[in-house]
């Protein structure tokens, strides 16, 4: 599947969890293609950070956006062309820090975009400062004596905001992750995939994750159960935590229309304008 990858030199650190995400995503694309969703329908984006480099590596249409905004960029793309399957790759600093408002509102409005969060619990590319998901006591260059804040839980936060598809994957379990990603993209509404992604340089959690990560056997019965499971720390469940149906934003906004593909002919538009400027 080499042709899904560009010629850009990969500059992730050897062993970085991002490789697993890249692999899983390619696998997910293959599965989608098998289901008839061609890659030309995909539109991807990413924030700035180590995670963001995936936008350089994946040979898919998209927008390498700015720190914390790729989900907003993708909401705009979706609103303009709802036929696209849009995916935002985000970092934990990116999405839970700088861009948390966009995350909450994308979930709230249940817009059909997929957010894949490379959750390494550090600002990787800016040399390891603590992020909103960093553990209490985490020592980074802005918190040399250890972080004094308790982390946010991305899953329960997104559930609280109204997300209709919430899942967690692990970059080292690429097959499982590919499956989740494919499901997330297929889901008709806002999907959030939190990916445990060890950063071998600043917060290497491989050993810990390998020990505690436990796949869910099935989707939990309801949101309360999803929340309970998402809060577990000693046994760290991965899989789909929550999946629900709710009206999708673009359809609620303008029904079965596509702003760029079904543009009103300019003549009609001008006739409409003429009506509005006629006394």
């Amino acid at each position, binding site marked *: 599947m080499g042709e899904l990858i560009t010629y850009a030199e990969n500059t992730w650190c050897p062993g970085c969890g991002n490789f697993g995400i890249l692999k899983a995503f390619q696998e997910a694309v293959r599965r989608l293609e098998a289901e008839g969703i061609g890659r030309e329908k995909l539109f991807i984006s990413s924030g700035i950070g180590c995670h963001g480099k995936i936008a350089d590596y994946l040979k898919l249409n998209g927008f390498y956006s700015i720190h914390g905004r790729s989900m907003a960029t993708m909401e705009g793309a979706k609103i303009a062309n709802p036929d696209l399957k849009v995916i935002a790759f985000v970092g934990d600093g990116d999405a839970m820090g700088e861009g948390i408002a966009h995350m909450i*509102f994308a979930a709230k409005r249940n817009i059909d975009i997929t957010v894949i969060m490379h959750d390494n619990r550090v600002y990787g590319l800016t040399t390891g400062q603590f992020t909103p998901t960093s553990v209490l006591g985490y020592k980074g260059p802005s918190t040399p004596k250890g972080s004094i804040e308790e982390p946010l839980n991305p899953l329960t936060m997104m559930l609280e905001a109204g997300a209709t598809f919430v899942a967690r994957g692990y970059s080292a379990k690429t097959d499982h992750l590919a499956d989740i990603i494919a499901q997330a993209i297929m889901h008709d509404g806002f999907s959030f995939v939190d990916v445990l992604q060890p950063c071998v340089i600043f917060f290497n959690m491989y050993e810990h994750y390998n020990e505690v990560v436990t796949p869910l056997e099935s989707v939990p019965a309801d949101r309360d159960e999803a929340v309970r499971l998402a809060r577990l720390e000693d046994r760290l469940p991965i899989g789909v935590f929550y999946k629900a149906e709710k009206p999708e934003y673009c359809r609620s906004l303008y029904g079965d229309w596509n702003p760029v593909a079904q*543009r009103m002919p300019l003549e009609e538009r001008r006739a409409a304008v003429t009506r509005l400027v006629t006394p």
Partner: protein
Amino acid sequence: METKIFTYLVGGKAGEGVKKAGSVAAHLFSGMGRRVFQMDDYQSLIRGGHNFSVVSTAVGDVTSHYEKADLVVALDKRSYQMHKGHVKENGILVYNSNAVRGEAEGIGIPLTKTARRYPNPGMRIGVGAVAVLAAAVGLSKDELKELIEREYRRDLENNVPYAFDVYDLAYPEVGGRFKLEHGDKPRAILSGNQAIALGAAAGGLDAYFAYPMTPASSILHYFAAHADDLKVAVVHPENEIAVINMAIGAASVGARAMLGSSGGGLALMQEAFSMAGMAEVPLVCVLSSRPGPSTGVPTYTDQGDLYFALYQGHGEFPRFVASPGTIEEAFYLTAELLDLVWRFQTPAILVTEKHLSESSMTVEIEPDKARRPDPLMHSGGEYKRYLETEDGISPLLFPPSGQFIRWNSYEHDEAGITTEVPEQIVRMRDKRNRKYETMVEYMRSQHTVNVFGDGGPVIYTYGSTVMSVLEALRAGDIRATVVQPIYLEPFPLWEIERYGDGIVVELSSTGVFARYLREKAGINAKAVIRRYDGRPFDPVELAEQIKEAM
């Protein structure tokens, strides 16, 4: 200083229907074939306080309200006190005698008491102000009824009899005092914000994004109300940062996108504005100014954002900045900017002011004359988003497509892949700079400067102040050459420099436009006529100031 202008001023509390009364008057006049200019002065509050609406009308051109009115209707005491000095010689002051007591000047009519015969008396008295006007300009009761029905539409079973009651009270005092000539034909009345919205629509807009902020909000409201007729996707998201990033995302898949806000909102958008410069995203941003800095004076007008508008965003990248001088121009200019941003794939700021955004006037608009975007599209072969071309413009292509399309906020190569290679950085910066040269070259063939008048001393102005200046020249019967750069960036030096030194008129406290002219064109201001109390110029006063400066 006699003009053929008739001015109607109605003042009262927010919630009393003041603006509506002004608008009804405006429609009455335009229905008579006259031209109209309506300016609404309101505070940042929802009920109470002091609002007023001034409508000036003439058979010929009128591009400003006048501070002194022929007919003033004061619905409450504060309006009475504020506006009793605003009655023209031979004008009439009518006041609500239930709100104003122990005052001698003017004609008292018990507007509130009369309204108490009907439900919601407080919200109805604006209708009374219309009835007074109807009587004063000699409308018949049938004509008044028709006017109320056409303009208010709701609650007619109370509004019409109330209007009649007031008409009967007023007629003996003011009946037929003003004879207004009919003009050639009825014209539409648009606010500046409506013109901007409609111009964008005529120019092919697909999606409008905005977070409410005075004085830009009514663009959002207008689009929301007309989303179905115009087939525009209208989105009001969580904040301004979402607004611009969504708009950029929309543009990146081919939607003609626009957004609007005031200074504070645009200030939040600058990071993404800079991204639009780097990624070469076509995007029109409407900046409707109010007095700043910061929250400032939200419901008033000012032109102090000029430099802010010009230099948004970090780094070097090309952009358009333009400002419409009239409401009609706002229509065409918005469409034109949509064309330009798509032609050159870079962002634009349409800078305007509350005075244009929220004032209304009669316009004659031909939607077919609006420019339509005609971007350069990819025509075959391997696609590269940032293809290095001689003129710096790379063809566009949108998904779905079998090709690789990558937009990028990082410095990049032709295909849009991130680069840190020195030669590559230089090449892309050169490409964008070449694009700027192409823009300038193109703009040389475009209409970038308006010149009004055929001789006389030069007056420089821009934005909504153009309307004030033109009216001041009429009001003061002054011969002058008014030079208005429509485009501020690229600055049309080739047009401007020929006019030499002149008088500068602007709404700012430090004379930013005069400074800009000096810095850009070496033009020295003989005088800088400034106003910066949040209010637009009064043509009569401005005429005096211009005469003095000449």
